[in-house]
């Protein structure tokens, strides 16, 4: 919201600079984000009146005669919107327009033009705040604009604006008088006196003639506690006068016609939303009621809207003629042809208007104020102010208003001084509290240990004791309170077990040498398609996504890790070893979120080096990492070959804990990588973190180890090529004595001199005993047995070495 300092100063004098006002308001909770300084950029452009217009034959040009008070100028223009008596901006010879171009006397094929008539752009006006008429062709001023005046003196262009960003509780500052009251509070606080809000009151009386013949009925007084309707007869709807146009300019209101301009002005200046109907279009009566389901109305913006019981409407005999507090109806709106106006000034329930506006998806200045809480005592004054302006600007004659009011006097709010101390941690002397309330113009009664407080009717944020305590803090100053640390019984603070586990796991993964990444938890249809994810029905969709690339909740980490892989490879970061622990989401008994761990490897563990030593990431390396983690978590899952759409069909495995699949591991399908421009092999594994945690809390206890030197023995076993290595290993272990402490596969060989379809597995076995030094003979017996076991269990042949 932009607030003109010039206009503000017209109703409250102050000596602060714009920046100072900005700071002071911000420190009271009315955030000023910046100051916009506007200065006119043209030179020597004055107002002039069009006396004559003549077409120049055989051209699109027109010759005009312009009265600038001191002289009459012949000016040639191409504009088609001019009429005699229009007041227009005239750039005199040797003037400058807003973009810096100098205007000189010009010769149009023998026709001298003594200057130029200007459009809005040539005087640098903001089109946002101009009427459509003003933006067309040559800019025209109100008809009562004096001629021969500098344009910058006629339109208040040069001004500083406060860029105000108001929070929803500051309904009392959404309009100029309201903001002026806050400046008065600032002054009162600095001068240590009571705020004087009376200076902003409009005390003008009204000359009325006759009655308003339209009766008013309110169906639900909680939704509309006050409604006033007044007939204003014989209005002339036209352009607003210069003095009103100037105020509209400073309030940044786009002009429409004098009657509508006045209602907008009263709203933005005094804070009272109003509505004007063409009185002759209202059938018989005005009823304020909930809309009936299925009712329709064409609103001012010419949109046909379906109403529901959430909407409060102003209706006549035939049906809705306005959506109360939100927007008027098209059929009953004031137009150039309107003769008699019905002026509405009302107070509606904030909740009701909020619901009504939101159900229709419309936000207007009126609904903004009503839903945040307008001043319930303002409507009668608003009606008088607007009526007087309409009678002045549009020559209407106001009648006596019809009023239905259910407004009750405000209840005082009790403030206990003990409560103030209890909340703030500081005793505040009663006299100070009273002073703070004086600064804000609150009324109060001293009841000893309590104050009975009545805030002004526009302060809708004061309802309860805690609201008053906040005002004490606001007036004393948020930073004028001491700091104190909490003093309490000491107890051990901790994380949840689960969070503790996550941090330990992350630490473990980093120690292994992986980089943690954190990716967005939103993914897209196209990424899931790329992966070939086929459980589409269980994917959670956002109802209102920002963009299609973040429109789904990721069902697996891989979908958001792939873009990270792609980006890094493109940026030349070829060696990647990363993990993420993050939420994945699924539709399952409602919406389910679980933590997943994903590990992605590509490239090498070593940097390229002059020793030519390298360690490329591979399936076994990835498996080693997972085995490390599983051992850390005290679990020993199994790996079962499986085929997933996004994995290499013969290089991936499901990870099973008992019968439950808790994850998978393998190599990502090259077809997918090709599509994202990655040519290196990529290895990936993912597990459900909650499953990892189930056994992780088993306490680690010391196990004795042998103090005698171990005995080592290497063996080699030839088996069929398709025998899983795990079976061989298990067979060895099954036959081994408890002294077997370590078994390491150190060679894997296929080819000559082995027969085809055979492979050789070489193991290094390590034996030790906690009781004695083992001797070769102790092992020999086992090796002898092993030959038979291998034959029986895996149809293999033991080759002794």
């Amino acid at each position, binding site marked *: 919201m932009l607030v003109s300092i010039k206009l503000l100063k017209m109703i409250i004098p102050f000596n602060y600079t714009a920046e100072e006002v900005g700071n002071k308001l911000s*420190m009271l*909770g009315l*955030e000023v984000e910046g100051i916009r300084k506007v200065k006119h950029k043209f030179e020597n452009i004055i107002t002039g009146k069009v006396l004559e217009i003549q077409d120049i034959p055989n051209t699109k040009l027109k010759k005009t005669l312009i009265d600038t008070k001191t002289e009459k100028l012949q000016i040639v223009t191409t504009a088609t919107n001019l009429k005699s008596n229009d007041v227009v901006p005239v750039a005199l010879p040797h003037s400058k327009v807003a973009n810096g171009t100098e205007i000189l006397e010009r010769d149009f094929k023998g026709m001298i033009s003594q200057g130029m008539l200007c459009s809005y752009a040539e005087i640098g006006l903001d089109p946002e705040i101009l009427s459509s008429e003003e933006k067309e062709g040559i800019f025209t001023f109100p008809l009562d604009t004096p001629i021969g005046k500098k344009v910058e003196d006629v339109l208040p262009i040069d001004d500083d604006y406060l860029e105000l960003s108001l929070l*929803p509780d*500051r309904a009392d500052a959404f309009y100029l008088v309201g903001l002026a009251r806050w400046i008065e509070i600032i002054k009162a606080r600095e001068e240590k006196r009571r705020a004087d809000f009376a200076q902003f009151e409009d005390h003008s009386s009204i000359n009325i003639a006759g009655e308003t013949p339209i009766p008013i009925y309110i169906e639900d007084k909680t939704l509309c506690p006050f409604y006033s309707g007044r007939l204003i007869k014989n209005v002339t709807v036209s352009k607003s006068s210069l003095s009103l146009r100037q105020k509209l300019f400073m309030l940044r209101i786009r002009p429409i016609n004098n009657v509508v301009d006045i209602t907008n002005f009263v709203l933005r200046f005094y804070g009272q939303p109003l509505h004007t109907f063409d009185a002759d279009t209202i059938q018989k009566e005005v009823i304020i009621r909930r809309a009936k389901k299925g009712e329709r109305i064409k609103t001012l913006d010419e949109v046909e809207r379906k109403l529901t019981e959430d909407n409060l409407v102003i209706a006549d005999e035939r049906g809705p003629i306005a959506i109360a507090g939100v927007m008027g109806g098209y059929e009953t709106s004031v137009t150039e042809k309107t003769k008699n106006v019905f002026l509405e000034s009302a107070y509606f329930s904030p*909740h009701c208007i909020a619901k009504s506006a*939101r159900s229709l998806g419309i936000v207007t200045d009126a609904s903004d104020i009503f*839903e945040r809480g307008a001043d319930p005592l303002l409507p009668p004054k608003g009606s008088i102010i607007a009526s007087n302006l309409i009678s002045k600007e549009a020559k209407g004659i106001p009648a006596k208003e019809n009023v239905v009011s259910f407004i009750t006097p405000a209840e005082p709010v009790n403030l206990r001084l003990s409560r103030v101390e*209890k909340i*703030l*941690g*500081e005793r505040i002397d009663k006299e100070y509290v009273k002073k703070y309330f004086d600064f804000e113009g609150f009324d109060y009664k001293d009841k000893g240990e309590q104050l009975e407080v009545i805030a002004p009717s526009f302060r809708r944020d004061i309802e*309860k004791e*805690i*609201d008053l*305590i*906040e005002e004490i803090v606001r007036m004393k100053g*948020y930073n004028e*309170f*001491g*700091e*104190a*640390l*909490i003093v*309490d019984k000491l107890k051990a*603070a*901790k*994380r949840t077990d689960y*969070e503790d586990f996550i941090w330990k796991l*992350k630490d473990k993964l980093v120690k*292994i*040498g*992986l*980089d*943690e*990444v*954190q*990716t*967005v*938890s*939103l993914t897209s249809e196209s990424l899931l398609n790329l992966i070939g994810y086929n459980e589409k029905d269980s994917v959670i*969709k*956002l*109802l*209102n*996504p*920002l963009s299609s690339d973040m429109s789904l*909740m990721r069902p697996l980490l891989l979908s958001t890790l792939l873009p990270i892989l792609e980006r*890094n490879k493109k*940026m030349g*970061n070829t*060696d990647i*070893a990363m993990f993420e622990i993050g939420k994945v*989401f699924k539709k399952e008994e409602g*919406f389910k*979120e679980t933590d997943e761990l994903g590990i992605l490897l590509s490239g090498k*563990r070593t*940097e390229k080096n*002059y020793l030519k*030593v390298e360690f490329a990431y591979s399936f076994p390396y990835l498996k080693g990492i997972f085995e490390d983690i599983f051992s850390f978590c005290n679990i020993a899952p199994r790996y079962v070959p499986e085929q997933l759409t996004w994995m290499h069909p013969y290089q991936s495995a499901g990870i099973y804990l008992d019968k439950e699949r808790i994850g998978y591991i393998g190599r990502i399908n090259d077809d997918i990588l090709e599509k994202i421009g990655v040519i290196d092999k990529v290895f990936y594994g993912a597990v459900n973190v909650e499953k990892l945690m189930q056994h992780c809390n088993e306490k680690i206890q010391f196990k004795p180890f042998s103090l005698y030197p171990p005995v080592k023995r290497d063996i080699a076993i030839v088996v069929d090529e398709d025998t899983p290595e795990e079976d061989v290993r298990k067979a060895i272990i099954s036959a081994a004595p408890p002294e077997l402490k370590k078994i390491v596969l150190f060679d894997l060989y296929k080819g000559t001199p082995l027969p085809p379809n055979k492979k050789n597995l070489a193991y290094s076995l390590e034996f030790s005993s906690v009781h004695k030094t083992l001797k070769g003979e102790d092992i020999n017996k086992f090796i002898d047995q092993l030959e038979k076991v291998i034959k029986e269990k895996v149809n293999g042949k033991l080759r002794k070495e």
Partner: protein
Amino acid sequence: MKDKIEQIKMEFEEKIKGKSLKEIKELETYFIGRKGKVTELFKMLKTLPKMQRREFGAEINELKQFIEKNISEQVATLERKEKIRKLKEESIDVTLPGIKLHTGNLHILSQTILEVEKIFLSMGFDVMVGPEIEKDYYNFEALNIPEFHPARDMQDTFYLAKKILLRTQTSPIQIHAMEKYKPPIRIIAVGRCYRRDAVDSSHFPIFHQVEGLVVDRKVTFANLKGTLAEFTREMFGKDVKVRFTPSYFPFVEPGAETSITCVLCGGKGCPVCKYTGWLEMGGSGMVHPNVLRGVGIDPEVYQGFAFGWGIERIAMIKYRIPDIRMFYQNDLRFLKQFKG
């Protein structure tokens, strides 16, 4: 005989000069080997008269010892030299670069969260978590933001279904905490939040917050200020101060926006702090009585404070990270800068 001894000695002294290890071994044999010259002298000794035998015997012995000593010294010297030569052959260029394995780091957000948690744990705050998918009730209604409340416009929300949304703040964890535990409550909760904000250098639809909540009989506004001041000093340095400005969050009252001294300019004013000298960190305030009443805590008996600060904001300020998008791009050249 005497001449012979003298002559052998001279010969030895002459021959041993500049000999290699191998040559010295030969010399050893030549002089004191089984058929060596000195050994020969011993043999000759037998032919001499008894008197002289004794005299020359001692001299030959002396000669033998002289030769042995010289040889072993010479051998030691040569061996030492040989060793040095061999070591020298193994000499390397110590200025060659070391060869590294890639090492891992925690994401800078995790590092920041750990640091935040550490400070609050040390102040006796338990660490809680809550779900990212929330009911409208927890994210809004229970926080004194009923349906259609204008404050809902302050946070653009992603919806998954009617009344089910992605939390826009960590504040719903306040409600979970108060439902789960009886006062005294002293917790923080860190988590991922979502807002339907257009992306720019300081806005991203995903971000993290740290929420704090303390509820007890005598928890005051002064405690709120003291706690955040202490946290700020620990996180950003002892000269960094906290400033409170009045603000509006329906679930706290008095409510405040909390800022810290701009760490870039020390409060003097710079483009980052828009020349205010202060950087906004998030909201805070005293828990609204409506919120306490809503979870069945009597606001006449218990009171408390709450705050919610942005984790990305903390990290961006502390580590001078210029763009929030970098956290989620995960470029290794970004991630690896933050060792930890």
